[in-house]
Every structure is written in C-alpha cells, then in structure tokens.
C-alpha cells in the first residue's frame, strides 16, 4: 500500500517535470524516423569499375554476358567525374551491383582510388590466357585478398553451376528475416527504453540526494526500498510507454506483446538497479558521469555485432545488452524463439534483484552516499 502511494506520488511529480515528456517526444521522433527515414530495405548495391583490355570480340562477349544480368537487359552510356577528370562508361545495373565498363586502365585506377571501390582489368597474358588485375584499397583483409586472387581460376559459369548444386541442410525452416526497418527496432528500444533507465535513475537519485529526500525517508514510516522502488516504477512506466509508441505502429499485432512487456520491464528493472547502485557510490551526477558514460559505451558494443553478422567474439555475449538485443529481436521475429526472451527476462530480473538488494543495503547504511 505504501509502495503504491509512493509510486503515485512519484508519478505525479514526474508528470510535472520535463523528463517524462521528453521521453514521450523522443519515442515519437524515433517512430517518425523509423516510418519515414528508414527504408524497409537499404539499397544493397555495390559499385565496380571494369575495363576489358581485350580484342573487340572479347569485349562484346563479356559485356553481353554481364548484360544478361542487367535489370532491363540494356546498358546505359554515362559520364563519371573523378579526380577532376571525366570518364565515359557503359553502365550495367543488376540486382546487386552497378557495373561501369570504362575504356582505359587509367580510368579504372582513378575511379577505384577516388570512389574507394574495387576496380578490375581483364586482359590477356603472354600465353593468350585471361589475366585479371584487381585494384584494391589496401585495407581489405588478407582472407578477402586470398579469395579474390583465386576467384578467377575457374570459369564463372562452372563456379555458378557448382555453387547451385551445393547441398544445404538448414536445421530449422520457416524462418522469415526481418526487413531493415524492423531490424533497427531492437537497438532503438533497447537503448532508448531500457538502458537510458540507468542514466535517468542515477539522475533522479542525485537530485533527491541534493534535496535531502533520502535522509528525510529515515524519519518517515516508509522504508528506503519502497522509495527506490517507486522511482524504478516511474522509469519502467516511461520505458514501457515509449517502447510501445515505437513498436506498435511498426509491428502492429504481429508480435507477442506479453513477452515484449516482460522483457521491457525486466531489462528496465536491471538498468535502473544498476543506475541506483552507481548512484549509491557518488555524491552527484558529475562524479558518477565517467562511470555511467563508460558503461553506456560498453553496453553499446554489442550493437556493432548486431549489425555485422560475421563478427561476434565470445566476450561480446557476456555484455548484458547482447541478450537484451537478441531477446527483442526474437520477440519481433516471425516464428521467433519464445524461450530466449523468457530466459533473458529471468536473468535480468535475477541480476536486477541482486543489484537492488545491494543498493538498498548501501542506502540504508549511509542514508545519503
């Protein structure tokens, strides 16, 4: 009962403040960005510059071969400017690439250098065998360079046929990938909703410390833990409301909102308890700022792994934001794994309770710091 009344009081106070509305406005802005600025699928086309240093017949054979992949089976003559020079090129646009066929090796070299993409020259060696020359930037990994160097040892048609004949056995089927817009939701709600709770919670406490509220609690009938918990409830409420503002218009009713609420609440509880714990060690936000800032940056590292599928070192997985992002992703995935967000929620709740208990002991002992 006391907890409920503390929560009500905190809520009224929060509704009079600026922060509560900033959260809501921020959620609306993110929603607008999601709906209007982030396309459903980012353009995945890459650019390549080619020069066929071959007799006319050879040039035509290779150009026609590339034209088969062109979206409208027609090339277009264009002019490209680079390094103060203008180059004429035949542009072939496929699903995945924009290929510019230029008329000199110098053009390939200049364009590859200035546009920072791969350039290739196809010619003949002294034995009249096809010879490939690639222009790379220099920062490509050794493994990628190795692959490029042997890629043309077999003919493209043979490779394509053998690749198509490879047997692939997926362990699970019915997987529908998220589009790019949906894929950006987990980091947005993870950081905007859950992790900012840490920062906001710490700010709340420092404000109250300054005003002597915590000391005043020692002489009231209510306990410190109720006071702390009522603060957490306010942060959780704002995080849930802002999370729903972002997610509902994009995902509609396709996702399990029970699971979403559970993960939003548990991750928010974890982050708020962490913020409380940090706040218990310092006098003011200025002093705690470094720790909070470093923690936020550390928690952002799994975002890199989230967007780069091939990069996922083991140490990334022990950073709490990793299961947080993966949990949100499973929730919005069609046919996502229900067990993962449930286990992640249980973990966040358990760690949150431990952090909260430690914080409570610290606040009870010191009453202020």
């Amino acid at each position, binding site marked *: 009962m006391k907890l409920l009344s503390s929560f009500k009081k905190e809520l009224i106070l929060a509704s009079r403040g600026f922060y509560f509305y900033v959260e809501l406005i921020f959620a609306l802005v993110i929603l607008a960005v999601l709906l209007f600025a982030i396309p459903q699928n980012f353009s995945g086309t890459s650019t390549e510059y080619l020069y066929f240093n071959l007799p006319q017949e050879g040039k035509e054979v290779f150009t026609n071969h590339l034209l088969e992949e062109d979206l409208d089976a027609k090339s277009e003559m264009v002019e490209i400017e680079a390094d103060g020079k203008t180059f004429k090129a035949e542009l072939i646009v496929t699903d995945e690439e924009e290929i510019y066929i230029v008329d000199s090796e110098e053009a390939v070299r200049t364009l590859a250098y200035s546009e920072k993409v791969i350039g290739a020259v196809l010619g003949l060696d002294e034995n009249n065998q096809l010879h490939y020359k690639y222009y790379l930037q220099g920062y490509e990994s050794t493994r990628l360079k190795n692959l490029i160097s*042997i890629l043309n040892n077999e003919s493209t048609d043979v490779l394509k046929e053998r690749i198509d004949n490879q047997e692939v*056995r997926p362990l699970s089927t019915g997987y529908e990938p998220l589009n790019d817009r949906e894929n950006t939701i987990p980091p947005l709600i993870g950081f905007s909703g859950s992790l900012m709770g840490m920062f906001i919670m710490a700010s709340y406490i420092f404000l109250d410390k300054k005003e002597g509220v915590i000391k005043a609690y020692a002489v009231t009938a209510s306990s410190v833990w109720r006071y702390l918990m009522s603060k957490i409830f306010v942060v959780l409420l704002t995080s849930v409301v802002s999370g729903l503002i972002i997610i509902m218009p994009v995902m509609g009713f396709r996702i399990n909102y029970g699971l979403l609420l559970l993960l939003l609440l548990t991750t928010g509880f974890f982050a708020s308890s962490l913020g409380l714990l940090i706040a218990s060690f310092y006098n003011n936000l200025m002093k705690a700022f470094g720790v909070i800032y470093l923690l936020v940056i550390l928690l952002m590292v799994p975002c890199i792994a989230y967007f780069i599928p*091939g990069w996922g070192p083991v140490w990334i997985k022990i950073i709490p934001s990793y299961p947080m992002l993966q949990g949100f992703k499973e929730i919005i995935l069609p046919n996502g794994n229900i067990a993962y967000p449930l286990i992640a929620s249980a973990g966040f709740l358990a760690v949150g309770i431990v952090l909260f208990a430690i914080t409570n002991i610290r606040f009870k002992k010191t009453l202020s710091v």
Partner: protein
Amino acid sequence: MLKRIWTIFIRDLTVNMREFITLYMMIIPLVLAVGINLLSPGINDTTVNLALIENENPEQAAYFDDFAHVELFRDEQRVEDRVMSRDDVVGILPKDNGYYIMTQGNEPESVLEYSKLLNVLYESDVQLEDARSEIIEFGRTVPPLKKMLVNILLLLISMLAGMLIAMNILEEKSDRTVSAINVTPTSRRAFILGKSFTGMAVALFSSIACLLITGFYDINLGQAALVVFSSTILSLLIGFIQGLNSDDVMEAAGSVKLMFLPMVGSIAGYEFVTGNWQIFFYWSPFYWAYRANDMILSKSGNWPQLILFIGIILAICGAVYALLAPRIVKGLQ
C-alpha cells in the same frame, strides 16, 4: 575583458579538475580511441565463420583458414550446437560423396553464398599457389569501419564538451552565481566566452589526441581542429540552452537524449541513406561535421570544400543562436 574571460576559464578548469569531470571527459575519449584500435582489426578481418569437425579433414580445415574463420569441434553434434548459436556460423560436414553445408536457416544470403563458394573452390582443388589474378593495392591502411568509429568519436567529444558547459552552468545556477554576475563588471558576453573555453579546450585536446591514438597521424590536423572547433560551437550553444533552461540535473539529463538524436540521425543518414535522400539531413550541422570529418579522415578533400562545410555549420549555428538568443539572455538574468 580578455582577463575576465581568462579568469572564468581558469576558475571553471580548477573547479572541474577538483570534481574530476574534466579529466573524465578528457580521458574517456582516449580510452574509447584505444578500444577502437583493439576492435577494428577483428571486425575488418570478418569474412565468414565456418564450423568443422576436428581431425576429420585437417587439409580442408587449413585450406578454409586462408579464407574464413574456422572453428573445430569434436563431433557433428557439437558443430550442430555451434551452428544453432545466435551468431552466424555455417557448418561444412562430410556426406557420402563430399561435403554439405549445415545452416541454422536464418543466415544472411551473403554468408551462405560465401560458404558455398569456399566449398566449391575446395572441391575444385583451386589452390592459392595457382592464383591467376594480380592484385594492386593503393596502400590505404585504415578500414572504413575504423574511420566511421573515429568520426563518431569526434562528434561525441564535441557533444561532451557541450554537456560540460551545461553542467558548469547548472552548478553556477545552484550556487546562485549566474544572477550575481549581473552585478559584477563581467559582461554577459565575457561570461559566455569564459564558460565556453573549458569545453572548447577539452574538445580540441581530446580530438587531436584521439586522432593520434587511432593512427591518423598523416591527416591534416589543422583541418580536423577546424571541424572540431565548428561542431563544438553548436554543442556549446546547446549546452548553454540546456544549462540555462534546466532547473536541475534531472531536466538536463532528459534533454541529453534530445541532443543525441540529431547526431545519431545525421550519422545514419550519411552512412546508410542513398544519394538523393541525403538532402533531408542538410539542416543538421552534425551531418556537415560528419561529412567534413569523413573527408579529412579519408584524405580526399580540399580546402574550398572544407571551408564550405565549415561555413554551413557556422551558418546553422548562427541561425540557431539568433533563434534562441532571447532564451539565453533570459536564462542569464
């Protein structure tokens, strides 16, 4: 007036050093720069991750290791467990007449195609020693991702400088010295400039140090300092507005999120949005700062371009100041 500005600057520096906040703000970007150095080689080396059975075909494992990250497991079940884990790992396992590709089913198309290609090259006995292609490199050593992270770090530093100003002003407000300034010979302009110096000094020091730590010795540091200076002006402006209009640290903390939004949006816009749509980000000074930094870090720009970008940043800052000047003046009263 210069003496007064200097006095305010020195006073801020002393107070901040006592609180360690300036030191934090100087040291944190340096720690992050070291972090970028540690992270980026691993990310740049990323091709595809393959899981194989240990000792089943050591020659194949060695072959794949030249093109991909290879992990070896004791048996098929362990490979399957690894493939089922959350990151993208593809298994290549023996079957009656060759090898098959084991996937979880949710890998991006590119990962699957890369794995298939490697298996085909192995089965076709295409060896590195027989490479027919010639590779010519331009000698660039900084991968794009590292450049992007350093660029983000530079913008973060200027944001931090703005926050430092906001917090300094909040402290002055709580000590009730802001209104006391009005009855001293120090003018408002001197107060503003003095307050801004700490943030600018921190931003310039941290930015140059981060560029050196991350290995950008050979870029034009003068150009970089100019961009940092111009983007810091915007952060200072926001810092002032935030500091003067917030009554307590809670309100300032809430608006931190609002400060980060245009910055993150501008970076995402520049990196991910295709050419024609970038026009929607032209209003953001962070977009121009990011673009100018990108030009400097990739050593591809020239002075006229840079001056244009800086001019745009300063013009936007000027417009924002003109719009918000009454609020700053009111806050100082």
